C-alpha cells in the first residue's frame, strides 16, 4: 500500500520536478490489450472561435475505471466533460464511447454538477426517478412496473443514507443531502458512464468527506466508469484509480498518475504519509504548470 513512489515513477519520469515546455505527453496512455476502453479521446482539439480551449488531448478510460481530472482553473476541465458526453462537438479528433463514435449527446450517461438542480416540484424520490422516465428500457416499463422502479430508487436512497427522506421536497434537505439525492438521480438507471463536474465544491469539509465515502460506496456497488472533474486534489486521490493533470489553457494532459491505494478507502487513509505525498506531488505539478504560462 505504501509503494507510492514506485507507482508514481510508473506514471512517468520526473513527476514533481520542473517540467519543460511544451510538456512531454503522457506516456502510458494506451490501455491494456485485453480490455476495450469505455471512453477514448484521440487527439481531441476544441476551439471556441479563435480561442484554443483544449489541445490534442488523448485519453483512454477502461470500463469501471474511476478517473479524476485536475488542473488550474480555466484549463478546460469542464470542456472535457462536455466533449465526452457529446454536448459539444470537437473541432478535430475523435471521441469514442462504448465502442461508438460520439457525434451528439450520448444516451443514458449520468451527470452531477456542483449545483444539485433537483426539481422543486417533485419529491426527492420523484427526482431520483426522473431518469427512469427518460432512459430505455425503464421508460417503457415505468407505468406498468411503477412499484418496482420506486423500490429501485428507494434502495439507492437507502445506500446514500436518505432512506427516510424520499417524500420530502428538495428544499427541505440540506446541501449535502441534496447532493446525495443528486448522485442517486445520476445513477438510478445504472449508467455505464458517470460524469461528475465538481459535485462537492460547494459543500463544507466534513460533508464533503462524507460524500466521498458515499460516492465510493455507490461506485463499488455499480462499478460505472466515472470521470470526476475537481479542484480538490485530496478528493481526486481519494476517489480515483487514475488522476490526469491538465495544463493551463490551452488545456492538455501533462501527466497521468495511477493511485495505488486499495478500496474501500477510508477518511483515515487521507492522513497516511503515502497519500499526503501523492497529493503534494500533484500540487507541485499543478503549481509548475500554472507558473509555466
Amino acid at each position, binding site marked *: 500500500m505504501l509503494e507510492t513512489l514506485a507507482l508514481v515513477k510508473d506514471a512517468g519520469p520526473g513527476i514533481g520536478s520542473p517540467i519543460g515546455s511544451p510538456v512531454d505527453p503522457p506516456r502510458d496512455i494506451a490501455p491494456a490489450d485485453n480490455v476495450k476502453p469505455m471512453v477514448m479521446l484521440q487527439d481531441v482539439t476544441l476551439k471556441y472561435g479563435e480561442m484554443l480551449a483544449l489541445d490534442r488531448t488523448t485519453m483512454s478510460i477502461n470500463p469501471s475505471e474511476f478517473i479524476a481530472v485536475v488542473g488550474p482553473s480555466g484549463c478546460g476541465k469542464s470542456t472535457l466533460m462536455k466533449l465526452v458526453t457529446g454536448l459539444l462537438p470537437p473541432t478535430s479528433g475523435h471521441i469514442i464511447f462504448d465502442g461508438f463514435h460520439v457525434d451528439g*449527446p450520448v444516451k443514458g450517461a449520468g451527470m452531477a454538477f456542483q449545483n444539485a438542480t433537483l426539481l422543486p416540484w417533485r419529491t426527492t424520490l420523484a427526482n431520483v426517478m426522473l431518469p427512469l422516465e*427518460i432512459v430505455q428500457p425503464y421508460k417503457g416499463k415505468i407505468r406498468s412496473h411503477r412499484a418496482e422502479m420506486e423500490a429501485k430508487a428507494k434502495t439507492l436512497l437507502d445506500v446514500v443514507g436518505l432512506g427516510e427522506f424520499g417524500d420530502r421536497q428538495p428544499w427541505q434537505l440540506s446541501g449535502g443531502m441534496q447532493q446525495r439525492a443528486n448522485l442517486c438521480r445520476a445513477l438510478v438507471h445504472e449508467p455505464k458512464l458517470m460524469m461528475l463536474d465538481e459535485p462537492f465544491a460547494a459543500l463544507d469539509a466534513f460533508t464533503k468527506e462524507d460524500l466521498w465515502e458515499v460516492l465510493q460506496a455507490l461506485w463499488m456497488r455499480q462499478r460505472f466508469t466515472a470521470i470526476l472533474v475537481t479542484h480538490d486534489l485530496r478528493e481526486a486521490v481519494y476517489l480515483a484509480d487514475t488522476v490526469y493533470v491538465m495544463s493551463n489553457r490551452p488545456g492538455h494532459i501533462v501527466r497521468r498518475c495511477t493511485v495505488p491505494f486499495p478500496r474501500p478507502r477510508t477518511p483515515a487513509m487521507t492522513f497516511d504519509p503515502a497519500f499526503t505525498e501523492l497529493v503534494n506531488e500533484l500540487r507541485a505539478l499543478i503549481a509548475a504548470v500554472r507558473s509555466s504560462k
Partner: protein
Amino acid sequence: MMQSVVKYGRPWLITLLLLLVWELAVRAFHIPEFVLPTPTRIAETTWQFRQHLMLHAWQTLMTTLVGFFFAIVVGILLGVAIGSSSAVYDSLYPLLIGFNSIPKVAVVPLIVMWCGIGTVPAIITAFIISFFPIVVNVATGLASVEPEMKDVLRVLGASRYEVLTKVGIPRSLPYLFASLKVAITLAFIGSVVSETIASNDGIGFLMLSASSRFQVALIFAGVIIIAIMSILMFLVCVYAERKLVGWAFRGQPT
C-alpha cells in the same frame, strides 16, 4: 386566532373608515350629487338598479372571461414557442413589443369596423390587451431553466419535447400564474373600454349612458361592480396558483 382577525380585518376597517370620511365630507361641504354622491346614495342606487346592473355585469364578466381564456391559450403557445426556440424569439419578439406599445383603445374603432359593435369587439379587446404579459412570463420561465439541468436531461437522451414537459413547463408555471394575476385585471380594462366605445351591453355601456343622463351614483355603482368582479377573478387566480404551484411558495402554508 385573534392575530389573524386583526390581520385580515385591517383592510376592511380601512375601507370602512374611508367610506365614512367620504360620506361625512360630502355632507359637510354640501357637494352636489352630480359631482360626488355619498356612499349611502351609491348603495341605494345600486339596489334600485340591481337587475340592470346584474345583467350588464354578467355580460362584462362573460366577455372578459372569454377574452382572457383566449389570452391564456395564445399566450402559453406563443410563450412556449418564443421561450424554447431562439429563432422564433429573434423573429417574433421585436414584433410583439411593437404591438404591445400600441394603445389598445386606439385599435377598438378598427375592430368595430371589422366586427361590428357588441360582444365580439369587447372579447377581442380583452384578449389583445391581456395576452402580452402571459407570453413574456411564460417565455421568461422557460429561459430560467438551469443549463446544467438541460445538460443532465440531454445526456440521458431526452428529446426536446421531454425537456419541455419534464422541466420547462413546470418551471414556468409560477411565472404563468404571476402573469395571470396581471392579465385578468387588464382583460377587464379591455372589455369595459370596448363596451364604452361600441356596445349596447355591459357595464361600460351602462356607465356611458348613465353619464349622459347625469346619473353619477349609477356610474359609481358600475365602477364598484367592476372592481368587485376584478378582485374576485384575481382571487380565483391566486387560489389556482396556490393549488397548482404551491411548491414555489416553499415553507408558507397553502
